[in-house]
């Protein structure tokens, strides 16, 4: 379970990217995070894995408040949170397997020697993850020769290889052909159902959210303005969520 209490993030220029956000996300949830660009979706996800330091508030993940973590404890927490980036963030000159193995890096010292970093267990987990995203036959292929959709699947496999307690995806389909969205969302949903790991996705296309997600969180100028089962996301509510932001533009 994730409990976010009074979460606020102020940037140095005074912008409130997140303004007193309160939300509880049960285990195994599949959540669409919606709102206009700049509404705070991305900052919200990045606070959850602490790529962004919250200004105030608490974030309880599995009973542990991760907001004040630093140093070694923060590293140990981060490795248990999978993150899928919009731009994949893969090393395109390396093979699929090498990239997915990076998901295991948090389990080793950053200063390990030049040989033999990964264990047999790491390889097994990486190969499992690659199988899960259906790329087993591409294991040794260089990522640069894969299509965009395949590259995002590699990135998802890398996050899965982390063996995360929480999976975050920041607009994972935004740089892909729209037709590939079903593949990506289907993979994440399948993983969510099989392992019971909560998944939060920043999503632009509401139609996708409706088809795949259980619940939604709607942000508008840093505030959580609506949340609940995806079925409650009526077109009236939708207009409300987006209209307020449009006025502000």
């Amino acid at each position, binding site marked *: 379970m994730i409990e976010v209490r009074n979460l606020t993030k102020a940037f140095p220029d005074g912008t409130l990217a997140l303004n007193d956000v309160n939300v509880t996300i049960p285990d195994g949830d599949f959540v669409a995070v919606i709102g206009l660009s700049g509404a705070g979706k991305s900052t919200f996800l990045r606070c959850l*894995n602490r*790529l962004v330091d919250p200004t105030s508030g608490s974030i309880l993940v599995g009973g542990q408040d991760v907001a004040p973590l630093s140093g070694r404890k923060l*590293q*140990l*927490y*981060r*490795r*248990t*949170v999978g*993150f899928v*980036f919009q731009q994949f*963030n893969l*090393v*395109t*000159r*390396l093979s699929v397997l*090498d990239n997915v193995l*990076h*998901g295991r*890096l*948090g*389990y080793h010292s*950053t*200063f*390990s*020697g*030049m*040989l033999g*970093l990964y264990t047999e267990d790491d390889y097994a987990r990486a190969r499992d993850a690659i199988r899960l995203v259906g790329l087993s036959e591409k294991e*040794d292929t*260089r990522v*640069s*020769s894969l299509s965009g959709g395949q590259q995002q699947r590699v990135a998802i496999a890398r996050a899965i290889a*982390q063996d995360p307690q929480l999976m975050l995806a920041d607009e994972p389909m935004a740089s892909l052909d729209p037709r590939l969205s079903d593949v990506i969302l289907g993979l994440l949903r399948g993983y969510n159902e099989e392992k019971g790991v909560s998944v939060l996705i920043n999503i632009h296309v509401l139609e996708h959210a409706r088809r795949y997600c259980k619940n939604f969180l709607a942000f508008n100028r840093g505030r959580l303005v609506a949340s609940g089962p995806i079925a409650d996301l009526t077109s009236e509510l939708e207009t409300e969520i987006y209209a307020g932001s449009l006025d502000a533009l």
Partner: protein
Amino acid sequence: MTTPLGARYTNARALGVAGVLAALTVVLAVLALGLGAVATPAAQVWAALWGGGDDLTRQLVLDLRLPRVGVSLLCGAMFAASGAMMQGVIRNPLASPDIIGVGAGAGLAATVFLLAWPAAPPGGLPWAALAGAWGGFGLVLLLSREWRGAGGLHPVRLALVGVAVAAALGAVQQLVLVRAPDGLGSALTFLTGTVYGADAGRLLSVLPWALVLLPAALLLSRTLDVLNLGEDLATGLGTRVGPARLLSLGVGVALAGAAVTGAGILGFVGLLAPHLARLLVGAKHGRMLPVSMLLGALLVLAADTLGRALLPPLEVPAGIFTTLVGAPYFLYLLKRTA
């Protein structure tokens, strides 16, 4: 991007490439040891290296020519390793010690040190160069306003500032040399990029640095792989980016500083060798770093040997050849990055 030569990057391939490069280096070194006013056949050079041959040949080969070849190899390897590490840490294909102010800072500091303190013990020079290397690099970081490193270093801005700072520091160095007393100034011209006149003393002052820093670079290869993932991802995966970056940069800067005291600023070796190595064996630092070092060593030795063989008894500085090859490549990279 397709894989060059249609091959996959494997450990076996890296070993093969490294083997070929090492063999080439040995052959070229033997040839270079035979080159000079008194030409020595390769067989005699080989014999002298293993303690045979007559006294004159041994003296010629071991005492006079070997230091120069040794300095070429070590400094080439160190520049190459330095460039490879900086490209990895800064994640900037244009990074190289001579481009981002490290070499120029080291060169200026070494020049001032030698002129201000001619009687200094030879071991002091690399330390002065090291301080200068950090000074030059620090200046570039400050001017590109990326000193906190919080948002990662901006590739093109860093390179541009680096080029400007390197040019300015180089000009100051030239000025100091011009103003220096006769003789002393010309004795320091090696700092502008040549191994001419490298003697046993210079070899011995560079050697300990190479013996510590080159293995240190190899030990950091896994760390460099991690840094290559970029700040967001590396941090998100739970690795310690800050200390890893600092340590890697420290070794990279020290490599360049020490190399400058041996051979001056050999232009573009730190840029060329790592790029070539990546083409040959891929981007993994565990394979790419050793191959870079071999390529750098080979490159500088080849440049120096060519410079000696081309117009005897005139000697063309090695830095001229490396720059002639490197500058167009830098322009090509600039075009591709922009």
